[in-house]
């Protein structure tokens, strides 16, 4: 579901290779960022405040047009490649996982949920901010519980990697 790459416009210039970029990563992507059109874009972009009161982390500060340039995807699988299999099933499974994880670790999230598929293993990882120290044991229980239940539902090995942060301000990349 997140593997859809959003392209800026319908203009034919989209495919034109960009010569000006010298960075090796950037030359691989032939994006033509048209500033006129970016101005009108509102998707994934919060409303700009005068006092810069909105704090964004790194992922949030890369808006939709940067997907595939400096921002990557939240789901990593081979379904949507050429001759990929189980496209709908993989997307539906990802949705289920996201909903389930969101409900299980409710109010702890400090980042997006990343889902990576490799062989028969699903790796789920996210950053968490625990309310207080007594939540450590609860989180360990929840990780085991979610792994067990998800692996029964999806019939494959599920691993959950949680990384905790001390303060939410640690992640602030940019104020907007």
């Amino acid at each position, binding site marked *: 579901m997140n593997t859809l790459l959003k392209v800026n416009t*319908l203009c034919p210039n989209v495919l034109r290779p960009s010569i000006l970029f010298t960075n090796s990563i950037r030359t691989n992507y032939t994006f033509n960022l048209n500033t006129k059109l970016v101005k009108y874009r509102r998707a994934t972009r919060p409303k700009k405040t005068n006092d810069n009161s909105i704090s964004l982390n790194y992922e949030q500060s890369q808006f939709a047009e940067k997907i*595939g340039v400096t921002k990557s995807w939240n789901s990593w699988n*081979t379904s949507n*490649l050429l001759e990929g299999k189980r496209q709908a099933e993989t997307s539906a499974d990802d949705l289920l996982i996201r909903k389930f994880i969101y409900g299980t670790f409710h109010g702890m999230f400090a980042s997006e949920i990343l889902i990576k*598929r*490799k062989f028969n293993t699903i790796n789920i990882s996210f950053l968490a901010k625990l309310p207080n120290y007594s939540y450590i044991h609860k989180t360990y229980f929840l990780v085991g519980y979610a792994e067990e239940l998800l692996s029964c539902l999806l019939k494959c090995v599920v691993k959950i990697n949680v990384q905790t942060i001390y303060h939410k301000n640690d992640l602030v990349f940019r104020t907007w």
Partner: protein
Amino acid sequence: MNLYRGITSKLLLKQSFSINQAKFFSVSRINFNSDLKERDLDDLYKKVVVQVRGHDNAVLESYKNFVQQTSKELDVNLNEIRQPDRFIERWTILKSRFSNRKHMRQYEMRTHFREFEFKHLTGSTCDTLLEYIQRNLPEGVAMHVHKTKITQLPEHFNN
């Protein structure tokens, strides 16, 4: 035949025999049974083409470096690395859920490719190499393997 086997087993029991002798005896023992000899022959691959596909070109570039390093360390003949042209699947759909025909959005899924061509591998080398390469495959990267095997001509051709 039994006599030879008896001698071999006696020799093997002794501690003081050289490696060359053991080699000689083990070879002569295989000659007794022609089926066993055929079974021990390894496959020969003239060409093994490994194609990897991914959405992110940078990931594939990194994986290419890994494969190059691996083939160098294992002393495998990595003949050629090709980069076929990418494939783009496009969907042009309405921006809104319903109506507003004039406002469209285009979404696309890109598939980038890398092809590694290995030459002149034995069966066991090929298995080891592929095992190692596949275990280190990053997420979101698919692999297709095409092997070209060398075989003997069928009997009706020989006659």
